[in-house]
């Protein structure tokens, strides 16, 4: 209810202030709720059209559309341009920082040779299997501890204690246990994603509306049905928060563990390039990590929007 009201408030606000500079409107919305901002930025043409109508259909509306579309990219594009100019004029040495064009060339070359595809696939598979293993364990523990008092008493305190150990601090121990092979990377990534997923799943289950659970019982739902129809969907918003947080940790852990030792993957690509002072490939590796991280987040967001479409906060 509250969220819906916020929505319509947001719309009203947008319409009411559409005569004034657009940035003000956006600023107001952004402060309130991120999804309002999304809403605003997703259909700028509508707001802009309103603005145009308010001003008696002047072409100012058109101008506003294009500005809203390109303005956010002005700074990054500008930075890349400046970087390119500094590199081309020799103000920045190639050994410190390759030019954007050089990075692009490295990308193209490795893409054609197939090396890049292979390395990305290897790193992606590592990341995903870590997420799958750690995420499943965290999810199952979160559900179990959320619904069962016994399980909670048995394991929650332990997990809360283990959680305080930064998982990357375990690297020396992990190397002693597993060496520097795949197991070490898998273990670290799994461990890293386990806790955010556990905590948020547990928290989500604990916070499912008691009245809804009682309603389910009144209507004779079995435990399984209660889980499927009430508890899991109720915990889902929180689980998604955990998932998106875990994705960040997943990439971070992978980058660190690939930097320590690897004979394939993006980290390997970067390490070998460093030995040969190929700064363009090193920077390319950074860019690819960034793109993969963004991609994972976009996919998670899309999944979230789809799964939580019943929730006014996620409605398009």
């Amino acid at each position, binding site marked *: 209810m509250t969220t819906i009201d916020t929505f319509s408030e947001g719309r009203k606000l947008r319409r009411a202030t559409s005569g004034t500079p657009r940035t003000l409107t956006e600023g107001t919305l952004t402060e309130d709720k991120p999804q309002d901002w999304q809403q605003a930025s997703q259909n700028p043409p509508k707001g802009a059209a309103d603005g145009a109508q308010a001003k008696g259909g002047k072409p100012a509306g058109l101008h506003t559309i294009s500005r809203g579309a390109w303005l956010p990219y002005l700074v990054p594009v500008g930075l890349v341009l400046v970087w390119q100019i500094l590199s081309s004029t020799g103000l920045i040495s190639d050994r410190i920082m390759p030019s954007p064009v050089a990075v692009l060339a490295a990308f193209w070359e490795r893409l054609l040779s197939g090396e890049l595809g292979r390395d990305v696939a290897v790193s992606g598979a590592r990341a995903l299997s870590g997420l799958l293993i750690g995420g499943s364990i965290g999810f199952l523990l979160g559900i179990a501890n959320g619904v069962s008092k016994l399980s909670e008493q048995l394991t929650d305190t332990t997990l809360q204690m283990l959680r305080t150990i930064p998982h990357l601090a375990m690297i020396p121990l992990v190397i002693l246990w597993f060496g520097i092979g795949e197991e070490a990377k898998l273990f670290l990534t799994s461990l890293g994603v386990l806790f955010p997923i556990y905590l948020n799943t547990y928290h989500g289950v604990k916070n499912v509306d008691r009245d*809804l659970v009682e309603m389910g019982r009144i209507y*004779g*739902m*079995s435990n399984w049905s209660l889980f499927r*129809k009430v508890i899991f*969907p109720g915990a889902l918003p929180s689980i998604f928060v955990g998932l998106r947080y875990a994705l960040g940790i997943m990439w971070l852990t992978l980058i660190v563990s690939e930097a320590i030792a690897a004979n394939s993957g993006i980290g390997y690509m970067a390490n070998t390039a460093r030995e040969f002072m190929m700064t363009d490939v090193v920077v390319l590796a950074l860019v690819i990590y960034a793109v993969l991280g963004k991609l994972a987040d976009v996919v998670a967001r899309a999944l979230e929007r789809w799964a939580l479409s*019943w*929730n006014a906060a996620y409605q398009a």
Partner: protein
Amino acid sequence: MPVSSYLLPSAMVWDAFELQERAYFPDGTEVRPIAEPPVLPKAPAGLRLRGVEKAFGDNRVLRGIDLDVPAGQFVAIVGKSGCGKSTLLRLLVGLDEPTGGEIDFIDDGGDRVAPDARIVFQEPRLLPWFSVADNVAVGLGDGVPKAFARREAELVLDEVQLSEKAREWPAKLSGGQRQRVALARALVSRPGLLALDEPLGALDALTRISMQQLLTRVWRELGFTAVLVTHDVTEAVHLADRVIVLDEGEVKLDLAVPRPHPRHHGDPELALLEGQLLAAILGES
């Protein structure tokens, strides 16, 4: 029966209320006039309570309640806040066990039958991630074939005049509409008895009047036994055949309301009964 969804100017809505023939929810949905032929009939279940007690530790909330509710009757329970109304309802529908006495469900002839009750709370308690129709289908229980569930949900949604909202998310509905979905969910399995715990308490005055008419109509069409807890004596005398005043965990007054339906808001006899009830609740003799 098709549900019309006229949008009338507000003056006409008021006229409609005045006439008492038909009324409209503030959202524009028409409240059907009370229909004569019952649809979806089902044998109602009466109640027989003997010395029913309920204590929470030292707190004796119900202290020996004796009550006979004939099958099909509409009973309202009123009383001060904290006098045990909700506790009694929870016992009736089996959500809690009494600490003493017996609760039996009976048929027309007074023979014991299996408990067969549903409850509607003040909050609709809908699953926000299920469509309206799927929420109603929850009332049928687990393992019901999909097609059957859908058909039953549609039937009962038509009964509460929400057919056109079957595919909506609950978040898109108004408070009154949500409560009608909760009512549909409670009724979809055709219970012999429906308990209502201040079901209209959270609604605005206009919606409440429309909902009262809807409740009366649904009760007359489906023929279940209704036990309504309310803090509103006007509501009690307008809806019920009989009003019971609970006080300190005992039945203080058991008052028949011998007026035919539909009842009118200006009815002086009802006003008289209201006065009697208020006096009993407030402890004047």
